[in-house]
């Protein structure tokens, strides 16, 4: 009961708050109702930032730009339509949402497809707001009945008009308050649903580990742009409501002070909580209201600036974040199960079943070939014209001393590094220029050197999100993740957060996620690191079974492990192919011993 309430707290408490707000809306003092309406609107604006920052991981300082542009656009439409047709909302809201979404998508396209760094992204979003601020000061335009007058602003915006026709009257403050509460609640619940949907799960994964998400085959940049566009739409709706509420807009909507307020709302309420920004706006708005002077009062900036500093220093998770962690203390710790594990034992029969089934759905194993693949970083050339064919049937091991270019070679194959020369093909397909996710979709599966798991998510969710990347079907993903979970023997830990697992278990989970993709070519970078001797033996069984059905390339330092694989071994040295054969011949090869032990002329 207690836990169920916690799990649906994002639904129940906001619903209660909406009902409470509607209940008091009739009896509020008209002026307070008028001011409180603006708090709700600011909360909605905060929600738009929470979607892209708390969930998407990008601190966007352009939310007020979408808000302002949406407001202006919606207002111009409303001014022209409302006098004849009434119903200002029907015109303003969709137009603003669409306009906000378009601008956000355009900005997001630049940010995400250029693969900007986090800081560069934030600064670029800030640039947009500042650009608008300077341009709108002198921007003058007449659109029908609306006059955008530079720093004189845009006036004559109709209020909230619900009825149709010329006779329709604008709502009184209390009714307008109730209306804004309803609209905001609707947007909140849609957002809540969206963030819990499969789309929201992918957004979460991108925030936690963007590279891993792409290695699962998700088109991350598209998801990011869509998420940003949604956030822009929410901001646009908030802008339209603000325009109708204030009946007037001017360039100060793009000002630095205005932009500053949005992260404050989110931080006060709690980053990533979705409901937090409303609470934050209510607290800040209420505070300035009762301190006197209202939101525009003289010392408000002084107080807000101080509040922001104190928040960042002392209450990083905001009010809701703090309440949430307090609540979790009274619930059983789901991560307890992490301690109850023994060594992982692979169930080879289940594994065979999985692989046969994968072959049915994903097609036969593919060859991976590189032809003169070449990658350089400044003066270092980690992959120097490597030509190699990898075929199914037996495992391929890549060995070589530290810095030989083994990991770089795998990363070039999967597309994490873009080669400067040569070609890479998967089956008959030339994938040299394909993005990472496209290669994964054509059948590549890669596990990096460091285990990459989504730490905040449970073991089952980790496997599920990997399976969903391929199947795009919830029911199938449930089945596949359950199957892999059983194969790994991690059933008891299915509810444990991945970050609570040991290093070796995270390796297994990562390998399990790769298997969920039913890859036709599997690249494993040091899978045995951090595993016990028993686990390494299990891993060897797994790799050999895997190699019967797919092409497997393993980078490994553990020579004993490489020996047990009984496969083909390639030695890399200084980015070049150095020797190949089976492990016995290589062990007798003096040149190979030279480079490993650092003697002789090959060093």
């Amino acid at each position, binding site marked *: 009961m207690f836990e169920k309430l916690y799990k649906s707290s994002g639904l129940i408490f906001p619903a209660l708050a909406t009902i409470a707000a509607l209940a008091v809306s009739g009896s509020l003092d008209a002026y307070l109702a008028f001011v409180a309406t603006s708090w709700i609107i600011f909360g909605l604006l905060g929600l738009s930032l929470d979607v892209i920052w708390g969930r998407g991981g990008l601190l966007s300082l352009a939310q007020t730009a979408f808000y302002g542009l949406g407001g202006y656009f919606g207002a111009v439409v409303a001014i022209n339509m409302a006098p004849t047709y009434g119903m200002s909302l029907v015109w303003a809201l969709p137009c603003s949402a669409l306009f906000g979404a378009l601008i956000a998508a355009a900005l997001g396209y630049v940010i995400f497809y*250029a693969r900007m760094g*986090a*800081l*560069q992204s934030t600064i670029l979003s800030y*640039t947009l707001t500042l650009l608008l601020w*300077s*341009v709108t000061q002198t921007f003058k335009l007449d659109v029908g009945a609306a006059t955008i007058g530079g720093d004189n602003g845009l006036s004559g915006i109709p209020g909230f008009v619900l009825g149709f026709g010329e006779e329709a009257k604008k709502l009184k403050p209390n009714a307008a308050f109730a209306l804004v509460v309803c609209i905001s609640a609707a947007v909140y619940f849609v957002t809540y649903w969206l963030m819990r949907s499969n789309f929201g799960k992918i957004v979460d994964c991108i925030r936690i580990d963007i590279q891993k998400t792409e290695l699962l085959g998700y088109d991350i940049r598209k998801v990011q742009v869509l998420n940003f566009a949604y956030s822009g739409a929410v901001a646009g709706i908030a802008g339209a409501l603000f325009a109708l509420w204030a009946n007037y807009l001017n360039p100060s909507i793009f000002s630095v002070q205005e932009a500053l307020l949005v992260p404050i709302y989110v931080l006060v309420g709690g980053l990533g909580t979705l409901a937090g920004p409303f609470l934050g706006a209510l607290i800040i708005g209420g505070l300035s209201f009762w301190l006197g002077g209202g939101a525009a009062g003289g010392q408000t900036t*002084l107080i807000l*600036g101080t509040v922001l500093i104190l928040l960042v220093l002392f209450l*990083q998770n905001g009010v809701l974040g703090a309440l949430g962690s307090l609540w979790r203390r009274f619930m059983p710790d789901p991560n307890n199960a992490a301690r109850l594990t023994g060594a992982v034992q692979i169930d080879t029969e289940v594994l065979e079943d999985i692989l046969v089934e994968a072959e049915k759905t994903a097609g036969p194993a593919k060859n991976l070939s590189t032809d003169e693949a070449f990658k350089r970083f400044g003066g270092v050339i980690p992959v120097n014209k490597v030509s190699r064919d990898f075929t199914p049937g037996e495992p391929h091991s890549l060995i070589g001393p530290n810095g030989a270019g083994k990991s770089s070679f795998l990363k070039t194959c999967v597309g994490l590094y873009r080669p400067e020369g040569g070609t890479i093909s998967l089956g008959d397909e030339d994938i040299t220029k394909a993005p990472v996710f496209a290669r994964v979709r054509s059948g590549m599966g890669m596990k990096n050197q460091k285990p990459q798991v989504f730490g905040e998510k449970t073991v089952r969710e980790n496997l599920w999100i990997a399976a969903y990347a391929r199947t795009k079907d919830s029911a199938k993903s449930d089945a596949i993740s359950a199957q892999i979970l059983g194969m790994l023997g991690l059933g008891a830990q299915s509810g444990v957060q991945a970050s609570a697992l040991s290093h070796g278990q995270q390796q297994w989970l990562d390998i399990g996620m790769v298997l969920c993709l039913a890859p036709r070519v599997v690249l494993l970078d040091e899978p045995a690191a951090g595993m016990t001797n028993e686990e390494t033996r299990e891993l060897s069984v797994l790799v050999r079974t895997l190699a019967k059905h797919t092409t497997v390339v393993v980078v490994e330092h553990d020579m004993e492990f490489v020996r047990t694989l009984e496969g083909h071994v390639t030695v890399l040295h200084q980015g070049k192919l150095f020797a190949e054969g089976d492990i016995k011949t290589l062990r007798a090869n003096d040149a190979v011993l030279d480079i490993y032990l650092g003697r002789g002329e090959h060093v």
Partner: protein
Amino acid sequence: MEPDFLATVLLSSLSSASILLIATLGLAVVYGLMGVINLAHGEFLMVGAYSALTATQIGLPFLLAIPFAVFMTMLIGAVVELLIIRRLYGRIFDTMLATWGLGMVFNQTAVLLFGTVSPGIGMPQWNFRIGDFSLAVYPLTMIVVAALLLAFVYVLMTKTVYGMKARASIQEPQMAQAIGIDSARVNTLTFAIGCGLAGFAGAILLPIIPATPSMGLFFAVKGFLTVVVAGPVALTGTALTALGLGGGASVTASFMTSVIGDVFFFFVTALLLWLYPLGISSKWRRKL
């Protein structure tokens, strides 16, 4: 196009670029050596301007008012580092938000103390003629000042013990601590120097840009963009970017309007970030 006009435009654009560089250098030092974006940088510039203004009002000559402004801003900068920045190491966005809040506090405090308008101090009224065009000398001297300042920071970072320690602390923080560098103290000094450079900028630019509480905003914004576009190689990258962006915007502004100059600045910023998503110097091999 008349050659006189062209020369005038070139000189005045070079001078605007130099002014941008002077205003930005402190930000670049703090970002390059601490990985911290100080969003209150513009307000430190404003503090420097007001310090110099107050000093001249009580009778100090302008040349002495500049060191006073540097001292004041360094002092405040050190206190800010100890109280706020230090607690937020490694949390770049939290640092940005905290310094943003700090900027607001400084701004509002300045409004309370000095009001929104304040008297400028007269610019030395020397002019300089190229054909039919006349140019004020003081802004042109900023070209020399920028070059000297750049050289000063370069020497400070490469030839002094402090500079070595500071660069060691940012390149290999743990190694630096392991060989006994007190990186916390080095960082306090770095932040103070960054703020001092802002103060210097505010003071030396006072004859050109009068002190107002919101004066920092103008430079701060362009400064952040310059530093972020420049990327990890703080000093050389920033000098180059300031020259390109600031100079380009100024040239654009002289042929068209100042709004178009601003638009040019922001637009080229976006373009450069598109081409170099981690900053133009992200693949350079030099470190300063």
